[in-house]
């Protein structure tokens, strides 16, 4: 199994996700791929990790979306290769058009770093099949620009097509404004592309993958994903 983590200048969760994926796969560690590469090796999974690529210049993810490697990433996505885009990876994926919508500044204008409860909205994907629909999972968030925006037509389409993966919710699963940390449209924390081979989410499953570091709710995501690839 060949896994690749794209590393941009300013990525800072690249190693975390490498570690989260490493003990669970037989084929060795995921390879780290520098953003200036023009081509990709044959990969079974591509991760766009969290961080602050290019110092968030212009817009979060805007510069990285035009890195040389992203042309190959977009082609891989179109060919059906699974892509997991986390936090800054979500911003990059949105800027590159891999998923609909975009991320703007948090409604409260603050950087938010804390654990949040998420409701699994669609377990019918290679990323979320380890969860039940409606299950509550707890991942950390750490972002300033995590406020998901899409126009009403797009939001309705996402709902209709089952493209909403996770929503921010209360501990008992209620989706309310009070449990929306950043002002995201319809409490959306993560979305799929139409064919569900791309998952883009603001919360960090790789930071919820070690019992010594605050929880293991992310294990089920990585386990299901790797099982789907083998």
């Amino acid at each position, binding site marked *: 199994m060949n896994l690749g983590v794209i590393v941009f200048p300013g990525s800072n969760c690249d190693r975390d996700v490498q570690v989260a994926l490493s003990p669970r796969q037989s084929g060795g560690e995921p390879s780290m791929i520098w953003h200036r590469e023009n081509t990709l090796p044959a990969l079974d999974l591509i991760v766009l990790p969290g961080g602050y690529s290019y110092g968030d210049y*212009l817009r979060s993810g*805007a510069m990285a979306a035009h890195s040389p490697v992203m042309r190959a990433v977009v082609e891989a996505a179109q060919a059906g290769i699974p892509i997991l885009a986390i936090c800054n990876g979500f911003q990059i994926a949105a800027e590159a058009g891999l998923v*609909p*919508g*975009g991320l703007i*500044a948090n*409604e*409260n*204008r603050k950087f938010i770093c804390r654990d949040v409860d998420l409701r699994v909205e669609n377990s019918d994907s290679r990323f979320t099949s380890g969860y039940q629909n409606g299950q509550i999972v707890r991942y950390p968030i750490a972002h300033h620009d995590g406020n998901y*925006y899409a126009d009403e037509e797009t939001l309705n389409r996402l709902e209709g097509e089952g493209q909403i993966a996770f929503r921010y919710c209360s501990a008992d699963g209620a989706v309310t404004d009070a449990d929306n940390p950043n002002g995201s449209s319809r409490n959306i924390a993560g979305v799929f592309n139409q064919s569900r081979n791309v998952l883009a989410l603001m919360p960090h499953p790789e930071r919820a993958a070690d019992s010594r570091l605050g929880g293991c709710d992310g294990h089920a995501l990585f386990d299901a994903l790797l099982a789907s690839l083998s």
Partner: protein
Amino acid sequence: MRARVRITLKDGILDPQGKAIAQALGRLGFEGVEAVRQGKYIEIELAETNHVKARAQVEDMCAQLLANTVMEEYSVEVDG
């Protein structure tokens, strides 16, 4: 030629920074500030000397990189 590009969030999208500026202006005693929208301003020096071509080039830059038209709108002025 010089192009000037202004980029703001689309109308109807909450602009948290603009809102904070409006509140700060109120606290400073400026009355009647009904709304503030904050955005980006970008100046671009172009080798192109044809006005129409320069504008088309900058519009293309906006669509591809300078603005994200999912949530932003832009205006372009070309002079020189």
